[in-house]
């Protein structure tokens, strides 16, 4: 199927073929799964916000501790205090949803600004941004976050600011590459000779018309990173604290029971992490292949 695809020009240019002809079924499946997960997460977030849950996530039931999945009224079983795991999973989304969006917003906003500066102005900006990129890449992210935790306090929004800032270089280098490519195109030159203000060229013609899909892709990848960080940190005990559930602290709390063969306490949140991050990754890669046409090789 792929051998018929003729990608005209270089990266970033789409072929004239119709959507169905140039799109790989695998990519559609990726995007389909990703969108399913995103929808599930958003709906669960809203349900959690309005407390529309199967059970009360804080309701301790000492008669029904560590009930296996499938117990009446507890689809995924109960934890070591008899609390409903499914409800806690749904509420656990609260721990990363808004902070994750903050991280994504920071990465996209500053990444775009720096990327435009480097791509459109070039010169010293470009050198500075390369330096900044290498600088950020020198730190293991988790270590940097632990440093911030030690210096300030274990606040999820501080953590997500660091996650967002460390994602800035990736976004800016993508935007920069795209602008380098677009600058060779006639429409930018035409815009300049028509006397359009630089603002219009950059915001409308470059960013809005040509970088939209790139930013959406980066947003999904950034969200996956944010979820990974939040769950890792709450696993390590720096995120949301018991009794408030988060997927990471649920895995951690279930660890001892895991070794006794009672897997579901840790496994339910761990698989939630797995499927969610997988969903965001596949969505990003699928969209990348479809919208940016990088499958042409």
């Amino acid at each position, binding site marked *: 199927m792929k051998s018929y695809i003729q990608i005209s020009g270089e990266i970033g240019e789409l072929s004239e073929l119709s959507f169905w002809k140039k799109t790989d079924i695998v990519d559609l499946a990726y995007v389909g799964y990703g969108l399913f997960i995103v929808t599930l997460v958003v709906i669960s977030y809203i349900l959690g916000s309005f407390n529309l849950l199967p059970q009360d996530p804080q309701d301790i039931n000492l008669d029904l501790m560590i009930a296996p999945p499938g117990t009446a009224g507890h689809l995924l079983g109960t934890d070591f205090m008899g609390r409903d795991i499914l409800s806690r999973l749904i509420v656990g989304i609260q721990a990363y949803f808004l902070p994750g969006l903050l991280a994504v917003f920071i990465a996209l906003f500053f990444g775009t600004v720096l990327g435009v500066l480097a791509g459109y102005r070039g010169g010293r900006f470009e050198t500075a941004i390369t330096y900044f990129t290498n600088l950020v*890449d020198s730190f293991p*992210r988790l270590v940097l976050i632990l*440093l911030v935790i030690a210096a300030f306090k274990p606040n999820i929004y501080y953590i997500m600011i660091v996650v967002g800032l460390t994602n800035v270089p990736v976004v800016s280098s993508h935007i920069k590459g795209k602008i380098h490519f677009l600058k060779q195109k006639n429409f930018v030159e035409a815009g300049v000779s028509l006397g359009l203000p630089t603002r219009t060229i950059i915001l409308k013609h470059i960013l809005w018309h040509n970088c939209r899909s790139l930013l959406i892709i980066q947003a999904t990848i950034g969200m996956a990173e944010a979820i990974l960080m939040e769950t890792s940190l709450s696993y390590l005990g720096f995120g949301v604290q018991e009794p408030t559930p988060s997927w990471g602290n649920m895995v951690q709390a279930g660890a001892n029971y895991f070794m006794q063969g009672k897997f579901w306490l840790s496994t339910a949140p761990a698989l939630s992490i797995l499927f969610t991050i997988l969903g965001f990754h596949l969505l990003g890669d699928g969209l990348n292949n479809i919208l940016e046409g990088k499958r042409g090789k």
Partner: protein
Amino acid sequence: MKHSAIRPIALMLSRELTITALLLLGVSFVVFIILYLSPGDPFSVLLEGQMSTAEARAGLRELMGVPKAWHAQYLSWLTGMLQGNFGTSIRTGLPVLKEVLRVGLNTLVLTIGSMLVTLAIAVPIALYSAVRGTNRVSWPLTMFSYVVSALPVFWLGYLVIYFFTHKLGLFPLVFGYSSSVQKFGWLYPMLPILVLGIGNGTISEVIRYLRDEMGRVMSEDYIRTARAKGASVWKHAFKEGFLIPVTEIIASKIPFILGGAVIVEQVFNWPGMGRMAWQAAQDRDYPVIMGIAIISAVFVRLGSLFQSVVYVAVNPRASKE
């Protein structure tokens, strides 16, 4: 190595060393700024519960000869660090640098071991799909790599511990107890290496990168020529299609693997830098975590230095760029 290859390497090395030095300067500055901005200066921690008035702090500051302006503070801190004085741990009172280097060796073993595991998994898959393209075998393998990359590494750790201690009974549950009974005790350190190698979340990226690079090289003209005249394709493709991409991707993934080490060391009680960082963050023992941040940045930079050396050794022209 041929003699002609030495000069470009020396040229490149001097340039790369300058860049590395500049970047490490930046690293130290970032670390300093984070601490500088943090609420409560070191003096209020030192004086906790004693006489924490502003005058007392100022007095102590003067007594210890700490400059007031931030740039002077930074400079004195930096000179101290260059002389190997990273300060002492607030919790244990031991010198930070010595402690971090002591446990850093364990982390080095863990990270290098897991890189090898990652490569051992990624390279065959990448080679296969680069040579054969997408087919019935490589597609499930790609899918598998996606799933593995999304696995929470801590849970993978539990899974492996459970399997090896309960199902196979190879190890005691807590390492160190009754180790004389267990015949396979020496295998225990392999577990965290294996877990981090699989679960560091980079496998799918590594596979994709290696596959694309190998695929690109395989379709080059010189490979076609080699194939046409019956020469060894592998020998011709090795440098550009294998050595360079492998060192490149490994160097760029060091920070991720070090980050994963923080979690894996926690799961397995591995006495390394990551566990120390965790403990330090718990205790807000910032001199320690500062030292760890800087040492791991040095480690990352050395990795990328190594990568540039390999790159120029393989392709001497690159030193002139």
